[in-house]
């Protein structure tokens, strides 16, 4: 076992002065939406989408299920904050306070060592972007979404909002009305990227929202590993994250989409991610949800093409005052499609962790296979763990299995470990890390280390509160 660094609570919590170039007034209105679009100098078709989304937002109701969102008031949120810099292509050009933020988060170091391309977003805009030359030589496009709209208008227009429609839910409508930043990736036919691309989102500005839009197209036979990370310092008032991820994965293409979210505990994280898979395509989701006051996050794979397959491996950690509602959605449409879902949640100090899933197997999905496995671990008697699966099965010629377990740390296991000299705290940490290991094993080493650090921070807080 690698010896874990001593936990540092303030690791993600440092904040910079709210030193923006422009911060739009709080709330949501036609005027605000038009102002964002104007400042971005956008084409009319995009403004039309924004305005249509605003109309839809006004009509849609809040979800009647899931965590309480009553504390979230869009009138208290500024939806667009432009940092005091343009997009830079070297870290030296990035203003010092922003650069030091990403330094602390280890982004330039990781870029140097492991990554083929990096994008860093600060509040509403991308402040740093780079991609290795050889990527461009292969025709790979990796840029921020605003630049893509200008440089590849036809490509963006063909795909934008075609995977996640404006009407999906109220916060997606909000997202389309005010979205800003995010990544655009295009991997041409047959190009297999060995190195990963990573986008990192940092929300520094208080009482604001982050609404990045990520659009990824992986063409026939191509492959990509994309990683996103997110964090924010803690403020006393509510922040909102309502991003959108649209993934198009073509015939026999492969996409691995890894996320570690570590939002501060005043964040409402209402995020939407969806992939459409063509014939023989495969998408692996790896998802770590830490932090946030409330998370509602249910990545989705639409197995449209025959023989397409998807795996979801997710972990969430709900501590004091947190309600983490996560899970996975999969729709089997094509023949011989398969899905494999492994979800783990940990709750402590009164935190609520819910696994919520949707499995739909349509009549057309002859010979589909679906396996769901979810485990909830509660570290004390006041925390909650719940499993809410919804299954629609229209085809009888399929294999479907669902296993759910909810439990506590075993006293006997803790005792066993203490007889081998481990303190009770170390024993618990080891058991929790072990519980999480199916997920950390899926992550590249440096992210697994980060995840273990997050787990240790959370456990350290348990100790502190005891």
């Amino acid at each position, binding site marked *: 076992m690698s010896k874990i660094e001593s936990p540092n609570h303030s690791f993600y919590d440092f904040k910079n002065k709210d030193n923006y170039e422009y911060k739009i007034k709080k709330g949501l209105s036609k005027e605000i939406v038009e102002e964002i679009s104007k400042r971005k100098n956008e084409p009319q078709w995009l403004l039309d989408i924004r305005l249509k989304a605003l109309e839809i937002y006004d009509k849609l109701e809040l979800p009647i299920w899931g965590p309480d969102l009553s504390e979230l008031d869009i009138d208290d949120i500024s939806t667009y904050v432009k940092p005091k810099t343009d997009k830079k292509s070297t870290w030296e050009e990035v203003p010092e306070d922003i650069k030091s933020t990403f330094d602390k988060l280890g982004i330039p170091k990781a870029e140097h060592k492991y990554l083929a391309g990096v994008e860093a977003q600060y509040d509403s805009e991308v402040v740093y972007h780079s991609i290795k030359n050889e990527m461009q030589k292969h025709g790979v496009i990796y840029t921020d979404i605003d630049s893509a709209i200008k440089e590849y208008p036809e490509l963006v227009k063909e795909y934008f909002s075609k995977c996640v429609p404006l009407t999906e839910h109220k916060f997606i409508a909000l997202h389309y009305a005010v979205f800003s930043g995010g990544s655009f990736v295009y991997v041409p036919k047959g190009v297999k990227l060995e190195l990963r691309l990573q986008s990192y989102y940092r929300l520094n500005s208080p009482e604001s929202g982050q609404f990045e839009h990520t659009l990824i197209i992986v063409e026939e036979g191509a492959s990509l590993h994309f990683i996103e990370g997110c964090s924010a310092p803690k403020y006393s008032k509510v922040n909102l994250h309502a991003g959108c991820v649209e993934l198009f994965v073509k015939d026999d293409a492969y996409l691995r989409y890894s996320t570690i979210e570590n939002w501060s505990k005043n964040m409402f994280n209402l995020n939407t991610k969806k992939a459409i898979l063509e014939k023989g395509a495969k998408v692996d989701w790896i998802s770590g949800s830490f932090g946030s006051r409330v998370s509602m996050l249910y990545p989705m794979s639409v197995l449209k093409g025959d023989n397409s397959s998807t795996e979801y491996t997710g972990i969430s950690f709900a501590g004091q005052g947190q309600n983490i509602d996560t899970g996975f959605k999969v729709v089997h449409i094509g023949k011989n499609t398969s899905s494999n879902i492994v979800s783990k949640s940990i709750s402590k100090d009164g935190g609520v962790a819910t696994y919520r899933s949707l499995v739909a197997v349509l009549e057309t999905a002859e010979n589909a296979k679906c396996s769901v496995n979810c485990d909830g671990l509660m570290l004390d008697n006041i925390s909650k763990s719940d499993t809410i699966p919804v299954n629609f099965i229209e085809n009888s010629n399929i294999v479907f299995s669902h296993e759910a377990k909810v439990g506590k740390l075993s006293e006997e296991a803790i005792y066993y470990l203490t*007889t*081998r*000299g481990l*303190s009770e705290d170390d*024993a618990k940490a080891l058991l929790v890390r072990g519980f999480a290991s199916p997920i950390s094993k899926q992550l590249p080493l440096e992210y697994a280390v980060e995840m273990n650090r997050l787990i240790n921070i959370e456990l350290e807080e348990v100790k502190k509160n005891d």
Partner: protein
Amino acid sequence: MEKLLEIKNIFANVDKKEILKGLNLVINKGETHVIMGPNGAGKSTLANVILNKPAYTKQSGKILFDDVDITDLRTDQIARQGIFMSFQQPVEIEGISFFDFVKTAKASIDGKPVSYFEFKDKFEALIEKLGISKEFENRDLNVGFSGGEKKKAEILQLLALEPKLAILDETDSGLDVDAIKIVSRGVEMFKNENNAVLIITHSSKMLENLKPDFVHILVDGKIVETAGAELVEKIEKYGYADYKSVNQITGDENE
């Protein structure tokens, strides 16, 4: 003779039920002791009371180990003093490999980091010696191990952690021929003049290949007879029936 463990008149409860009723025991360095007794006599309780397992509460008495009063120390502190207890049914721990675990335990016991390469060599020598297949090194601790493999894994930990006192809880494994072989070989490898072994068992079969210096009979929470290895034969022939009746009589008298 240097005293290693001294148990002085221990009374202990489990779930408010009195299990140990004034137990005394002295183990010196270099000795092998065996505690035998019928089911329900308090054999496993004794091991867990020495290790101060939560839920086992001492009402009175003292336990001294290597001149340190360990009566009220926590389990992990007692382990770090140099007492190892092997489990009859070791717990399966997911997500940590056998090797990583033993290395972590070693660092905890020694109170200092363990050199990876040095420890790796030592670990691999041990798995070879014990006839554990090399693939177990990276398997999750005890997960999917057979009974015999679990036993070997416990013995490996004993040998790697090098405690001063090994307590082998073999309460129920008396009839498993493989287990008996593994344990007796392990004890053989472990024993030296500076450490000691305490084997807790129900059945005399456990002792065929072991030459204990002392055999104690534990009945109803007390040691009722102590003698040399010859006592094992007596138990083999007559069982515990005599002791039970004796104890019951004394028990009645006490009432």
